[in-house]
């Protein structure tokens, strides 16, 4: 892969970048030999000659991409086309809260103090793809919610790849800071509009201060030539609650690295996901919840349905430090294989150093209940719909906790489309 020598040396975070590129050069792309990448190979992506920095500005009309927005409700929008901010599709604000651009936060002096405190602080400094992003990132969403505030409406972050330049690699970088007792809802989506190859290597840092609430939704329903490596790092302080829901329905290769660090007491972390795959798709959920202090909880629930020749990977890790007594950590991974060629690799992992804890994990691989199928068919529900109903029911635990009704309806539609049925009702 060729990286154009196009780095801005005058940049205030230039030192951070220099160190990051050095670390990346030492490590290179992860290979299957590494335990964390045992089930996911990046070989097919490394063969493609991606262009890192777009050479031209590309414009899109709103009507062409309206369907990718949750247009039923009013939202703040931060939209990028081939990694470049699109002002005519976006709606940002500085009214009490900052919902704007990473590029301006990185360059404008008024943000310098915040950038110094937060930028690249929770993101890994030696995970190779994260360092690659740190070195080359230019743009992304910057969201700052001050103490006791809550934005009037949810925030949508959308990345479009137009593919006007053969193969493109995007390195978006989001920084989300939610101060004490503040709250925010965010919906993130990556969408390729082309048949050309697109690779997104995204890094999101989330800082949730005391008693903050962050509700984050990732919708992954990309085309068969789009790959996504999503690295999300969450730093939580006492009594905060961060929820991340990941809906993976598409894309060629998707890797979600979701890392939670609990730096405080009495907090809750929720990690949930629904994965429905077909064709030759590959999704790898790699989660880490690190319980550093006592009296915290974490809840993980990942459901997967795998068809055709798709591959699903779940690797969930819970670490409970010695002092993190009274931790309650739960992890669940349920999978259904509906095709002979589909594969699921699951590795739920516990590393526990404290004794007064309740930790459990469960993992199942199974089929749809034949008796239930038969029952529904005797009641006149066609086989295909009966199957879809059972799969809905299977995923429902996760869907239930989506707190934006319009978003829930949209995800229901996506699931119905993926399963090829129209049930005519919302769950």
């Amino acid at each position, binding site marked *: 892969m060729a990286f154009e020598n196009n780095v801005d040396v005058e940049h205030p975070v230039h030192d951070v970048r220099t160190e990051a590129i050095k670390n990346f050069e030492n490590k290179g792309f992860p290979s299957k030999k590494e*335990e964390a990448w045992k089930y996911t190979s990046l070989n097919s992506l490394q063969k493609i000659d991606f262009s890192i920095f777009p050479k031209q500005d590309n414009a899109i009309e709103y009507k062409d991409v309206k369907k990718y927005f949750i247009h039923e409700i009013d939202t703040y929008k931060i939209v990028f086309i081939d990694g470049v901010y699109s002002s005519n599709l976006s709606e940002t604000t500085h009214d009490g809260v900052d919902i704007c651009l990473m590029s301006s936060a990185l360059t404008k002096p008024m943000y310098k103090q915040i950038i110094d405190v937060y930028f690249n602080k929770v993101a890994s400094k030696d995970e190779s793809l994260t360092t690659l992003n740190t070195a080359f990132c230019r743009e992304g969403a910057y969201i700052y919610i001050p103490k006791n505030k809550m934005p009037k409406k949810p925030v949508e972050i959308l990345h479009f790849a137009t593919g006007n330049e053969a193969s493109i690699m995007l390195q978006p970088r989001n920084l989300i800071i939610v101060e004490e007792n503040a709250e925010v809802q965010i919906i993130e989506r990556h969408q390729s509009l082309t048949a050309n190859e697109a690779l997104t290597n995204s890094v999101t840092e989330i800082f949730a201060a005391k008693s903050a609430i962050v509700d984050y939704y990732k919708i992954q329903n990309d085309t068969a030539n789009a790959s996504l490596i999503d690295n999300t790092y969450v730093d939580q302080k006492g009594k905060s609650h961060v929820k991340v829901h990941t809906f993976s329905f598409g894309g060629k290769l998707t890797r979600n690295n979701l890392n939670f660090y609990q730096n405080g007491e009495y907090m809750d972390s929720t990690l949930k996901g629904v994965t429905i795959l077909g064709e030759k798709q590959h999704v790898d959920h790699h989660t880490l919840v690190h319980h550093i202090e006592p009296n915290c909880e974490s809840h993980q629930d990942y459901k997967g349905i795998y068809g055709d020749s798709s591959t699903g990977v779940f690797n969930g890790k819970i670490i409970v430090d*010695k002092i993190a*007594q009274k931790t309650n950590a739960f992890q669940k991974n349920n*999978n259904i*294989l*509906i*095709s*002979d*060629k*589909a*594969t*699921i*690799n*699951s*590795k*739920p*992992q*516990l*590393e*526990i*150093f*404290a*004794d*007064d*804890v*309740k*930790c*459990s*994990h*469960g*993992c*199942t*691989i*199974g*089929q749809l209940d034949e008796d239930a199928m038969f029952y529904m068919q005797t009641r006149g529900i066609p086989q295909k719909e009966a199957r879809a109903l059972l799969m809905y029911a299977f995923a429902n635990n996760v869907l239930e906790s989506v707190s934006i009704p319009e978003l829930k309806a949209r995800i229901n539609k996506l699931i119905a489309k993926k399963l090829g049925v129209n049930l005519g009702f919302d769950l």
Partner: protein
Amino acid sequence: MAYTEEELKKELETKEYEYGFYTDLKSETFPKGLNEAIVRAISKKKDEPEWMTEWRLDAYRIWEQMEEPEWANVHYEKPDYQAISYYSAPVVADPNKTLDDVDADLLEMYRKLGISVDEQKKLQNVAVDIVVDSVSVATTFQKSLGEKGIIFMPISEAIQKHPDLVKKYMGTVIPKKDNFYAALNSAVFTDGSFCYIPKGVRCPMELSTYFRINEGGTGQFERTLVIADESSYVSYLEGCTAPSRDENQLHAAVVELIAMDDAEIKYSTVQNWYPGNKEGKGGVYNFVTKRGLCETRSKISWTQVETGSAVTWKYPSCILKGNNSVGEFYSIAVTNNYQQADTGTKMIHLGKNTRSTIISKGISAGKSQNSYRGLVQIGSRAENARNFSQCDSLLMGNECGAHTFPYIEAKNKTAQVEHEATTSKIGEDQLFYCNQRGIDTEKAIALIVNGFSKEVLNKLPMEFAVEAQKLLEISLEGSVG
């Protein structure tokens, strides 16, 4: 108050390893180091045929190219493979002699170990093969087993008397290049047990091997091969002890089981190698490769109670090759002080309608680390494969760790896999309840731990279950703070 928890804790900490004695036996020990000449010398010592020598040398060459694995969740100073003596034998050992000729010191050692060869012959229905350091020193009951056509003898003898069987099966389940320790074992193994159960025979008694490392500066590399021919049944027991030493002794064994159509093998281990003292000095490195191959409708069941060793690296596995075959794994792993254990199983489902059950109980106390690492793999042709796994960990004190690394890989849509793991500590309310009813803390913990491990203890043959229960009590009680 007669007996406080503090006192109990102190007593346990200072409790000596019961089998830590050393018996001064005249023995012949090879110089330290490993090279082709040593491998040849071992082979010559054993008076082995040419093919066996070549087999060993081939394994040695493979081993030279390999690197010691580092992926396990254990930390230790790597043994210097050139500082170990690969052959040590009590000079009196001669399998052709009767028990009466055996050195009195040796018999005294058995008595301390609790194996009185004579007594066992009379009272218990157990045939024993005893391996001290590198050679098999006593095999009982050979005659009565022989009447049924059962072959039970040291493997070195089997190489002489039944070369066809050994040649055909050795290394088929665990190839020489399987892993670092298996390759090392293939090159330098000195003895072990060989067992063959003919077609349709149900072995009338438990077969048992007792392993003991006696000499210092040596490693023990034994090799066990159990073949159960069609429709046969055998239950096999294995026990191990070693003297207390400051050095870390290496134990790298290989156990291969072959269950042919409709056969059943039950393999039980009580592993109680010297675990090191309470500062973590000394103790045995236990790097063992155990694997069984199941043909159609056969069953292999592994039961293990792991209380000893400074470092344990052990994954008894089943390859469920035949249709309708069954694999089982029941394990209790107890770690205390500075012990480290990384143990678990692999269930490889290849045949149709194959079933496997994994029950693993980990108990960690002191400053120990206890890991479960398991793989359940459902191949694309394994229709209707079924697995149930349960891994429970019990933590005592806040300086130890319990870890779970399950790998689950399914490639067939009819697969049904369930995995469940929990981690907890002994409930204060449970202890309180017992105390309230006049059961002191010591007994209460024993009771609770016993309850926790019951599912596995129940799977052990009677004599072993009692021993295992005792071992658990010694290793654990009072560790709760």
